[in-house]
């Protein structure tokens, strides 16, 4: 009998679920007033007593979704309910832990933890008692009068957890809380939190965590949501029925990790169906943030022993020390360029991929250039504009504006930077960073 089912039965008396999103969409207004859809029609329910993890590519709108649930952002369409009541702003009962800790540097640990209570108008003595208790429970006793900048990242995030727990939150929202910590620190903090949860030492009835780490999600969550991007939405859902504490080496655990990898890498193609040829991408496609050097290193690795051109993704990530955030963009680029196929949680080099691996540096550039001009519409578009212009020069801002029709300002800039980097490497165009001009100079 799993823990999840047990919790659900014990608390099934409550009529309305703790947290519910109904047909939530979010559109951001672009400078030229064309809406850009970030989240599309999301239905989601957080049940009593469960931990749900949200996984997806960076930029998929996971954090936006979390902020809508938190009441920090209003949805453009649809609505969010906390225990049956519509959410129109931050609600008492929902606490949040941030990626960057978000501690007030001018307040001591105690001051930071007390802040939420102070805002609720709790008396000074009561405040002190509860804050000391929360600091104690999260393992920070002795540091009450320290300032955040004196503490390590792990300790700072503990303060952040104490600040969240001291208000006795009904629901805890976690926005990649472990991503800025080193592996060991993250694991310790995660286990401590899980202990508190499993032993019911905190009154919290539900946790939603946005994560970029597959193992972390499988270790914590009772349910994993896979987010697709452009626009963001839940593309798949996975239930994890393993009792806590989970052992990451057990076959059952590995199998789920494999499944998650499969779900995460069966993109592009919005519906994420496996084995289907990915639908063609457009100029405004959110190109993955993958550096070329890493790409060639990975391809080289894949041709060597023990992979011989084929690898199991979790295994590869583990062996080559790649985080999910690093691996996913690389895989996407390999697929985009037709250098590898990814399916069922495995990667296999294509013929082109093998040729690329065996070539010398100059020929690699050529293969890369050909692949870019064949498969990446944005690169094709830039090259065509430059070819057509009499001076073979065009300001980068011109392409940026085009991209902003499809992407947010930041993302447009990132995508343009990415394609410029690839293009410079492939020598299909040149770029002058001072004047921000693309050209066909020197070739």
């Amino acid at each position, binding site marked *: 009998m799993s823990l999840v089912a047990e919790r659900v039965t014990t608390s099934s008396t409550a009529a309305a679920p703790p947290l519910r999103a109904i047909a939530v969409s979010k559109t951001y207004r672009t400078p030229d007033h064309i809406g850009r859809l970030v989240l599309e029609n999301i239905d989601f329910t957080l049940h009593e007593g469960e931990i749900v993890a949200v996984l997806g590519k960076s930029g998929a709108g996971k954090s936006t979704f979390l902020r809508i649930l938190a009441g920090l952002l209003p949805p453009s369409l649809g609505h969010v309910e906390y225990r049956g009541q519509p959410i129109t702003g931050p609600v*008492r009962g929902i606490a949040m832990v941030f990626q960057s800790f978000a501690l*007030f540097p001018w307040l001591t640990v105690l001051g930071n933890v007390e802040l*939420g209570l102070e*805002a*609720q108008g709790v008396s000074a003595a009561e405040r002190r008692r509860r804050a000391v208790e929360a600091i104690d429970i999260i393992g920070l006793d002795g540091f009450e009068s320290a*300032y955040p900048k004196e503490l390590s990242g792990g300790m700072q995030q503990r303060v952040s957890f104490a600040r969240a727990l001291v208000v006795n939150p009904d629901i805890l929202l976690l926005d990649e809380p472990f991503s800025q910590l080193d592996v060991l620190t993250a694991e310790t903090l995660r286990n401590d939190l899980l202990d508190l949860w499993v032993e019911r030492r905190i009154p919290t009835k539900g946790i939603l965590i946005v994560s970029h780490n597959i193992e972390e999600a499988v270790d914590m969550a009772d349910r994993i949501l896979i987010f697709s991007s452009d626009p963001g939405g839940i593309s798949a859902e996975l239930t994890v029925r393993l009792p806590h504490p989970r052992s990451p080496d057990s076959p059952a655990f590995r199998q789920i990790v494999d499944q998650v990898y499969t779900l995460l890498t069966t993109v592009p193609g919005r519906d994420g169906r496996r084995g289907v040829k990915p639908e063609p991408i457009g100029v405004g496609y959110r190109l993955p943030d993958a550096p070329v050097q890493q790409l060639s290193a990975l391809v080289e690795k894949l041709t060597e022993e023990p992979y011989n051109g084929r690898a199991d993704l979790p295994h590869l990530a583990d062996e080559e020390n790649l985080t999910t955030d690093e691996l996913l963009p690389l895989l996407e680029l390999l697929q985009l360029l037709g250098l590898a196929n990814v399916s069922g949680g495995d990667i296999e080099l294509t013929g082109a991929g093998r040729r690329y691996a065996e070539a010398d540096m100059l020929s690699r550039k050529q293969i890369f250039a050909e692949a870019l001009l064949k498969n990446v519409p944005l690169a094709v578009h830039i090259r065509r504009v430059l070819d057509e212009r009499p001076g073979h020069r065009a300001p980068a801002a011109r392409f940026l504006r085009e991209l902003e029709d499809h992407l947010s300002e930041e993302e447009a800039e990132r995508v343009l930077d990415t394609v410029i980097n690839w293009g410079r490497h492939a020598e299909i165009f040149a770029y002058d960073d001072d004047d921000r001009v693309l050209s066909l100079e020197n070739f």
Partner: protein
Amino acid sequence: MEQRWGLPLIAWPSRLRPNLWDLVALPLVLGALALVAWGGMKMGARYEVGESLPMSLDPWRLPEYALRTVLRMAASLVVSLAFSFPYAALAAKSRQAEKILIPVLDILQSVPVLGFLSITVTGFIALFPGRLLGVECAAIFAIFTSQAWNMTFSLYQSFRTVPVELVEAARMYHLSPWQRFWRLEVPHGVPPLIWNMMMSVSAGWFFVVASEAITVSGQTILLPGVGSYIATAIAERDLAAIGYALLIMLIVILLYDQLLFRPLLAWSRKFRGDADSEEYDVRPWFLLVMQRARLFDLLQSGVLALNRALDRAITAMSWRRSPAYDTGPASPAMIRFFDLALLGVASAAVVWLFAFVREQVSGDEIGWVFLLGALTALRIIVLIVIASLIWVPVGVWIGLRPQLAERVQPVVQFLAAFPANLVFPAVVVLILKFELNPEIWLSPLMILGTQWYILFNVIAGTTALPTELKLVASNLGLRRWLWWRRVIWPAIFPAYVTGAVTAAGGSWNASIVAEVVQWGNTTLQATGIGAYITEYTAAGDPARIALGIGVLCLYVLVFNRLLWHRLYELAAERLRLD
């Protein structure tokens, strides 16, 4: 954890017993209170326009005069703070308000400080008839105009750049807007505010000296203070008296530094998120006194309690405290209407001002004033170039020697704070003695006080150069010229631009004082827009004052937009070290 510096924001009411440190603190506080009371009494004294206030050149009267000057300075600092907080908060929080407030601030910043004095003094005197307070207010207002704008800007910038996640955290944990302001936005703005206060006070000393001698409808009122003392000494050609005045200003500025800014700077470091390096973690002695003495704990917990009470009162008054999303922008139609209205009002003001000036001033004269502006601009450009040629090499030389730099920094800071106009008489005496051409030799006065900003920033820029870069440069065997062009110049460029902008801005302001200088009955005058403004201020000609100030503003704005702004962008984009 007793060893932490920084006034703890959480006070412990049970431990408010007095201790030995209070023996030091108590007299200081009581003394300060008595001073304020005494100064207030003096300021409120009876006075009718036309009376002449007695000024004595007796050096023993100087401490009293210095006190009056210091109090004026302190009053204007308080007024500047009181102005900056609401102004910056409003500009940062309301899109609509921002559209008016920020350009206004930009223009105010470029209006020469002494211009305000001539425009406003009559109004202030009318406000308090029969009292000296009106004249005092005019002087304080003039100092205020030299201090407030950059403080306001720094606060506005800080309010705009509060980290998003901190704002979200504040909202998640239900801080009221009042709490959010005092617990998040203000603390975030404290360190840059303190820096700007230091700069402001430096500028203030210059103008406190200039603004104590106020001209109203053709006659000069001398407010008791160091500035008036010097004005009298100049009129009576008393070099010894000027020496005494220099000495007392030196002491005053040192005290300000020790009692106010060193402690404030050290204290403000706790509001910064990044960890300090060890070497900065020293507490100035006065901060130590303040932190150890219970008296200040008492004061602090009093202030905090007051703040909480206010918060509760505000919360109680706002009947609707349901949580809400941050309100989105107003409807596009409203925004467009607002913009149009704003544009209308602004153009009406310009037309009216132009008509007002045109009524009394001929087109030729307007052209002449523009030419005068160009002359002053030429002077400033030449001066900045010369000052750069001198101070950049010196600054780099000092900056490469960290121990020397550490000792020189406070000296340069002090020089920048010292009111340069105190030395003007000495220069005049020299010009007269050697029969030099005032058109050329009065010019250096403009940059006398502001050149230090170049030196100061170049030293700072050089010390910030990473050791690795220096090592690589010597490893590559870069020779003199190449080293200057490829290593040090790009490295210090951003800092240099900052220094040069400050120096140029200060020089525009100083031109009003520096282009006309007196020594007894002798008046030396250079041709320039500063002299033009001074001349018609003395004559009390509002149309020509407005014309002069307007043209000066225009020049400053154009220079800022066309030259400095671009250099700043270049520096920010290409030559940053981080």
